[in-house]
């Protein structure tokens, strides 16, 4: 059933908030706004949530027709409040060839800063901590992510085990409590 949100006259960020709430209840929403800023903001919201956007202008108002792209696999629910945590427990991806695994992990990290939505936190454990230490091939990529607000947590016990505690070049040294809290508070945990 199509939900219609009349957000005319409402101050920013109400049009975005109301539309976002509507996405929890329907795959098709029409949001009506009366200024360009609201039109732009609601469009951005819709696109980031996997909705197609069509804008119709009429009588000084903008009618945004928002339709969820793939209803079979589309996520229902407010994915903003469900943060993505990336759990990296090795410096390699998969089993088999360690050499291949390490190359895959490097490629994985390098692609990360183009992914939407960004992970909120990246956790490094066991040999994964080697990625944040001096000599790692992905230090610059991790520093870029950190600069863009991604939290990098490296397990302190693991760093000491590998004698890397003085050589951390990206992220911060963390502990089991903070790491476990981060995992349990996450909306989604991805483990490459």
């Amino acid at each position, binding site marked *: 059933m199509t939900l219609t949100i009349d957000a005319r006259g409402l101050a920013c960020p109400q049009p975005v908030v109301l539309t976002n709430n509507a996405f929890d209840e329907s795959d098709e929403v029409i949001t009506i706004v009366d200024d360009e800023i609201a039109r732009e903001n609601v469009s951005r919201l819709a696109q*980031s949530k996997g909705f197609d956007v069509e804008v119709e202008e009429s009588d000084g108002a903008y009618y945004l027709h928002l339709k969820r792209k793939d209803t079979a696999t589309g996520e229902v629910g407010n994915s903003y409040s469900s943060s993505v945590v990336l759990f990296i427990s090795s410096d390699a991806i998969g089993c088999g060839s360690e050499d291949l695994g390490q190359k895959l992990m490097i490629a994985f990290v390098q692609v990360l800063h183009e992914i939407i939505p*960004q992970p909120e936190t990246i956790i490094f454990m066991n040999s994964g901590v080697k990625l944040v230490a001096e000599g790692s091939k992905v230090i610059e990529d991790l520093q870029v992510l950190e*600069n*863009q607000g991604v939290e990098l947590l490296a397990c302190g016990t693991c760093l000491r085990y590998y004698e890397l505690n003085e050589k951390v070049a990206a992220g911060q040294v963390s502990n089991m409590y903070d790491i476990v809290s981060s995992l349990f508070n996450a909306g989604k945990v991805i483990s490459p």
Partner: protein
Amino acid sequence: MEIPADPNLIVGLETFEDAGVYQLSDVLAIIQTVDFFTPIVDDPYSFGQIAAANALSDVYAMGGRPVTAMNIVCFPGKTMEISILKEVLRGGLDKINEAGVTLVGGHSVNDPELKYGLSVTGIIHPDNVILNSGARPGDRLILTKPLGTGIINTAIKAGKVDEQTIDDVTAQMAMLNKKAAELMQEVGVNACTDVTGFGLLGHACEMIQSDDLAFEIDHAKVPILRHAIKSAQMGLIPGGAYRNREFHGGMVEFASDIPQWAGDVLFDPQTSGGLLIAVSAEKAEALLEKMRNAGVDKASIIGSVTHGVGTKIVIK
């Protein structure tokens, strides 16, 4: 407006500088600036801190040292509890003291809306004034605070951020640009401005005043507040960002694969933002390291100054 010429005026209205600078003698010039605004955050003490840091920043952006300040207060005396004003002023005074500045007075008026800020006087040697203009091809661009305060404040209004994020953005806005300014004078730089309401790109445009200059900024190197990118993607973008884009967008060119959030963040109006500095390539790393060691830990090299054909900023 016609302003009579004055030979002692080092910096006046004409060149979009951060403050006025007036020469008093061969070795002394005064810097004068004023800034005040409506509440940015809910907590009165934090508001006072942020407003004070914001007003002091214009002196730091010229490379000067603020010495005295006066409070400017607009307060709805009949409808707001006086305890709120006391907290705002306490926040302002703590920040003024932190800067080593002396509060010498102030003025208040009744007003339906609360506003607070400062009038600030600073001093500088006439030879050491750092202008907006002065960047040279080959210079590196350093930004000392992360972007995104406008977006995060919109996200706060939408109830979409946690306490930690509110604390982080408040701390960033309340941070003085004092250390950054002192180090910039120590190392020697070519140009500087502080990043506030026009966003990084708007203020960067003010630094390009000759047809021969251009800036190249790497969006991946720009420090950004946590959650700002996610919030921008969610459309929690203040109207000011769109106005900035409209006003200055003609001078900016985005490479084709730049994500939309990058433009939104780069045009996002900042409250009490950091310094944008053009420094020679040879000195850039040294200045950056000094800043990071001194607690300006988000300072980053974000791009460089190049030759340009027509004033332009290129984002890659």
